[in-house]
């Protein structure tokens, strides 16, 4: 009886947010079993072990190599049964969210999502969930015998001192009904740091005037190893791709540091960044509302400040 953890493998690498889920499950349940699809290298297996899993179910069937929401949900429900798991933990994502909701219906489990902290198990099972797009929290109790938790990024630090996990091959039963959706192709930025996973984010707004001025944003991002984001008008005008749009109607980020350049700080933008640990705002207008939500601020022209800041960081990096 261990907690089960769905670990997403992206381009061969276990996602950081999934490793957080492993450490979370290991801490809550004492032991954790991971399930992976689409191939597992020794290196990734040892990372998953170090994060706290004692066993990895490796569902390597070729038919499951590309992400398939319905088939993954069936396989995970089957794995929960096989391992007698009463707890499933996973990271929130475009794959994790629909999979968890389907598994909840299949298994009759109680599902809580946007979980930001370890559970309170004094007389029940309660978790703190982020609601109203980060503007509040709900202490939510889960009544079912089985429970599923969808974690927000940074709910817990990744353990690195776990043991090594045994790898067991797992062949879930496949049914045709789960293959009704045909993924004809996938387009994915490669080699970039993905925004929802990023620990540092540099975002640009309409204050940058045009897509041709993003060079300095990218340069700063590259210098500190950050992902790039933007405000909604910027993606609406196609200056940047839609998947970089941060806010109420876009990506919700929770990095250690969010750097906002030429963004006014409309409440809908703030809704996507209010789980950041620290916020640095660079805006030429000292009255910009973003400064009220910031930890650090520079009132100045981005076209001067950003190159200078990048130089200053490079100088200190030596």
């Amino acid at each position, binding site marked *: 009886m261990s907690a089960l953890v769905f670990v997403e493998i992206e381009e061969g690498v276990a996602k950081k947010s999934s490793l957080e889920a492993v450490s979370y499950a290991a801490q809550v349940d004492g032991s954790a079993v991971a399930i992976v699809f689409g191939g597992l290298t020794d290196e990734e297996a040892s990372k998953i072990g170090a994060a706290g899993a004692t066993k990895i179910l490796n569902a390597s069937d070729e038919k499951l190599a590309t992400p398939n929401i319905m088939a993954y949900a069936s396989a995970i429900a089957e794995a929960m049964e096989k391992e007698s798991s009463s707890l499933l933990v996973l990271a929130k994502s*475009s794959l994790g969210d629909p999979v968890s909701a389907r598994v909840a219906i299949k298994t009759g489990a109680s599902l809580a999502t946007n979980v930001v902290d370890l559970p309170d198990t004094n007389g029940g099972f309660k978790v703190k969930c982020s609601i109203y797009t980060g503007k509040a929290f709900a202490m939510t109790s889960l009544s079912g015998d089985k429970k599923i938790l969808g974690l927000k990024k940074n709910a817990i630090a990744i353990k690195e001192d776990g043991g090594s996990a045994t790898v067991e091959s797992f062949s879930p039963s496949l049914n045709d009904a789960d293959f009704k959706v045909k993924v004809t192709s996938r387009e994915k930025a490669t080699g970039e740091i993905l925004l929802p996973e990023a620990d540092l984010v540099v975002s640009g707004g309409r204050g940058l005037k045009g897509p041709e001025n993003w060079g300095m944003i990218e340069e700063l991002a590259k210098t500190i190893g950050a992902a790039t984001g933007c405000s909604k008008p910027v993606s609406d005008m196609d200056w940047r791709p839609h998947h970089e749009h941060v806010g109420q109607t876009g990506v919700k980020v929770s990095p250690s540091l969010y750097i906002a350049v030429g963004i006014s700080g409309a409440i809908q933008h703030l809704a996507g960044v209010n789980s950041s640990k620290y916020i640095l705002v660079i805006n030429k207008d000292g009255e910009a509302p973003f400064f009220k939500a910031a930890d650090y601020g520079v009132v100045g022209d981005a076209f001067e400040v950003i190159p200078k800041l990048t130089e200053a960081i490079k100088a200190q990096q030596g």
Partner: protein
Amino acid sequence: MKILVCITHVPDTTSKISFTDNNTKFDKTGVQYIIGPYDDYALARAVELKESSGGSITVLNVGEAETEPTLRKALAIGADDAIRINTFPRDAFFVAKEIAKAAQQGEYDLILMGRESIDFNGGQVHSMVGELMGLPSVSPVMVLDIDGNTAKIQREIEGGKEYMELDLPFVAGCQEPIAEWKIPNMRGIMSARSKPLNVVEPSTDDTATEVEVFELPPAKSGVKLIDPDHLDELVNLLKNEAKVL
């Protein structure tokens, strides 16, 4: 084509969030309610699909009587009739069961929802409804084109998108740029008053979760401003105080 659009009745995105009754109830004082922004995209796409290939649009909300103005607004935007399932939407599981039951009865070709509600941000209801009805569910959908019985979809994933094909019926959770939000015109508002709004009693009372108490995040302690001519100092703070570089 018969389309069902499920909409939430949620605080306007500029609302200040606060709670009453020892932090057990949402404080509605001064709050403006709207159709959830993602649900608004779903509705807008439904109206476009109806314009191009005919059919009908039913909007549905699981909520108490106070949500009726929001349903009327959806009727003004272009839905033909509305269903309100008369109960407080206790949790995603409960709502999904009610929607699945109504959807089963209506035999819709397409069920459109928002990618997520902006109060609980679960992003769960569409997948739960799909699973309960034995249908595929796809979310978040950025492009939805329908040709006969087949849909072509672009779904956003982290750092990119997926192109997919599937047959009707299915459930989709929508987001921009699937369609432009539509603003009701005078004719729409007038006709909405006489369109049917059916109130249905709920059929279950199963929930899986319960909110015990709400909490607000701690307030920020105030911004430290750094002179643009002394950016070394900023780098120093980021490194040694925040410890993020």
